[in-house]
C-alpha cells in the first residue's frame, strides 16, 4: 500500500513501512553475519605468517628482478605449443559443438524428450569439469604432452561453445525459417538458408571468444604435464629460479594481450 493520504493530499512512497523495516532488518542480519565470519576466520589465522607477508613478498620480488631475458630462447617452442593447443582445441570443440547445439536447441532438436536431454547432458558434463582436471585425466590416459592438452581444451570448450550457440539458435526469427520451409526446401536447405545466416555472427563471435579464453587456459596446462609454457613455469618454480618465472609471466601476459587484440579485431570485423 504505497499510496496513502495525508492532510487531504495523496502521498506516494516506494515501499510500505513494513516492507522498509524488513529491508533494514535484512541488512542488519547481513552485517552481523559478516562480523561473525570475520571473527571466526581471525581466530584460526596464524597472524605471525600474515605479518611476515610484506618481508617475504619483498624478498621474492627482489629475487625476481631483473628477469632473465636470455631464457626467452627456451620459451619460443613452448609458446608456440601453447598457441597450437588453444587453436586446435578450439577447432575440435567447434566441430563437435555445432551438432550438439542443433540437437540441444528447442526449435531444431529432432526429439525434445530423448535427444535434447542427452545433448544438454553433454554440455553440462563438459562445462562442469575444468580444463586442468580434464588435462590431469588425459595425461594419465594418453600420457603427458601436447595431445593431452589439446584434447583437454577441446573437451572443456564443447560445452561452452554448444551452450552459447544453442541459445543463439533458440533466439532466431521463426518467420524467416517458415518462409524458407514454405518454398519446399528440404530440412538441410532450411538449415543452410533459414538458420545459418541468422546465427553466423553469433557463431563467429563465440568461436573467437573461446579461442581467446583457451589461450589463457592452455598456459597453465603444463603444470600437470599437458604441454605448453606451463611446463616451464612449473619447473622454474620448483628450482626457485625466480628471474625465469618473471620472464615466463611476462611472456604469458604478452601472449594474452595479443590474443585479446586479435579476437577483438575479428569480432569487430564480423559483427
Amino acid at each position, binding site marked *: 500500500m504505497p499510496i496513502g493520504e495525508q492532510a487531504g493530499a495523496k502521498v506516494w512512497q516506494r515501499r510500505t513501512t513494513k516492507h522498509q523495516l524488513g529491508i533494514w532488518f535484512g541488512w542488519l542480519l547481513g552485517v552481523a553475519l559478516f562480523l561473525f565470519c570475520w571473527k571466526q576466520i581471525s581466530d584460526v589465522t596464524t597472524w605471525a605468517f600474515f605479518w611476515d607477508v610484506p618481508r617475504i613478498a619483498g624478498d621474492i620480488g627482489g629475487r625476481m628482478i631483473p628477469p632473465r631475458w636470455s631464457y626467452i630462447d627456451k620459451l619460443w617452442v613452448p609458446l608456440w605449443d601453447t598457441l597450437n593447443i588453444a587453436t586446435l582445441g578450439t577447432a575440435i570443440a567447434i566441430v563437435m559443438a555445432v551438432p550438439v547445439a542443433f540437437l540441444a536447441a528447442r526449435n531444431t532438436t529432432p526429439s525434445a524428450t530423448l535427444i535434447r536431454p542427452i545433448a544438454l547432458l553433454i554440455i553440462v558434463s563438459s562445462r562442469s569439469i575444468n580444463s586442468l582436471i580434464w588435462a590431469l585425466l588425459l595425461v594419465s590416459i594418453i600420457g603427458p604432452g601436447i595431445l593431452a592438452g589439446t584434447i583437454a581444451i577441446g573437451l572443456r570448450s564443447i560445452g561452452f561453445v554448444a551452450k552459447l550457440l544453442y541459445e543463439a539458435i533458440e533466439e532466431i526469427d521463426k518467420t524467416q525459417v*517458415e518462409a*524458407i520451409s514454405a518454398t*519446399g*526446401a528440404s530440412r538441410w536447405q532450411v538449415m543452410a*538458408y533459414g538458420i545459418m545466416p541468422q546465427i553466423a555472427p553469433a557463431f563467429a563471435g563465440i568461436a573467437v571468444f573461446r579461442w581467446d579464453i583457451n589461450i589463457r587456459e592452455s598456459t597453465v596446462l603444463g603444470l600437470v604435464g599437458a604441454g605448453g609454457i606451463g611446463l616451464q613455469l612449473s619447473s622454474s618454480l620448483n628450482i626457485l629460479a625466480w628471474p625465469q618465472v618473471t620472464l615466463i609471466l611476462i611472456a604469458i601476459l604478452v601472449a594474452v594481450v595479443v590474443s585479446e587484440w586479435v579476437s577483438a579485431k575479428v569480432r569487430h570485423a564480423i559483427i
Partner: protein
Amino acid sequence: MLRLEKLTKKYKTGDMALKGVDLDVPPGQVLALIGPSGAGKSTLIRCINRLVEPSSGRIELNGEDVTRLGAGGLRRARRRMGMIFQEYALVERLTVMENVLSGQLGYVGFWRSYFRRFPQEIVTEAFRLLERVGLEQFADKRADQLSGGQRQRVGIARALIQGPDLLLVDEPTASLDPKTSRQIMRLICELCAERQLAAIINIHDVVLAQMFVQRIVGLRLGEVVYDGPPDGLTPEVLTEIYGEEDWAATRDKEADETPAGHGVTEGDPLAAM
C-alpha cells in the same frame, strides 16, 4: 484448383481456430480473406501449406490431398504454393538475389544451393523478376538495407520464382504505409493476372480489398460468414463479420475522400482523419 473441405484446426490450448471451413478457389482467381484479429485468417492460410498442421478436413490442390502427403510430397506441393508474409520474412543477412533464388530451393539439390550455384535460367528469371518488381539495381544489396516496401517486393519475387499455381498472401500491407500498401496490392494483383495465378490474400483493410479483388470471403471465429463480390459488403454484412460499428458513417466518409482516400481499417488511426 484449390478446394478446402471441412477444414478444422484446434490448437493445443483448446482454441478452435477453424471450424469446418469449406472453400473452393478456381484457377486464376484472386480472393481476399477478411475478418477481425483472431478470426483464423492466418491459421487458414498456414494450414494450406501446412506450416500449421490442420486437425481435420481435406485440402485438395490440383486434385491431390495435401493433408495426407509425407515429407517429400509436402515439399513438392509447397513448390506449387508461393507465400508472402506480413513482416516480409526475408533472410535478413542474405542479399536480395539470394533471397529471390531461395524460392527455387525446392527444385535445386542441397550442395548446389549451398554453394549458390543455381542454374543460369533460374538466375536469368530472378533478374527478370527483380526488374518486374522494380528492384533491378538492388540485387547485390543485403535484405536488411531495404525499406519495407522494397522488402515486400523481394518477398513477392521469391514467391513468384517458385512458379506457383497459388499465392498465399498473409497481411501483405499491414506493416506498410497507405501509399505503399496500394502499390504492393496492385503489384500482387497485376502479377496474378499476368500469370493466371490464384491467390488468397489475408487482409485487414476492407477498402483496400474491395479495390483490388473480385471475391471476398469473410471469416468470423473460424467460420465463413460471407462469400461474395466486393460490393456485397453492406453495413449489415460487415457487422456480421466484425461486430457492431457505425459502418455507414465510415463508408460515407470514405466516399467523400475518394479517390484520394486512404484504406480504412478497424482501429486504424487513419480512420479518424
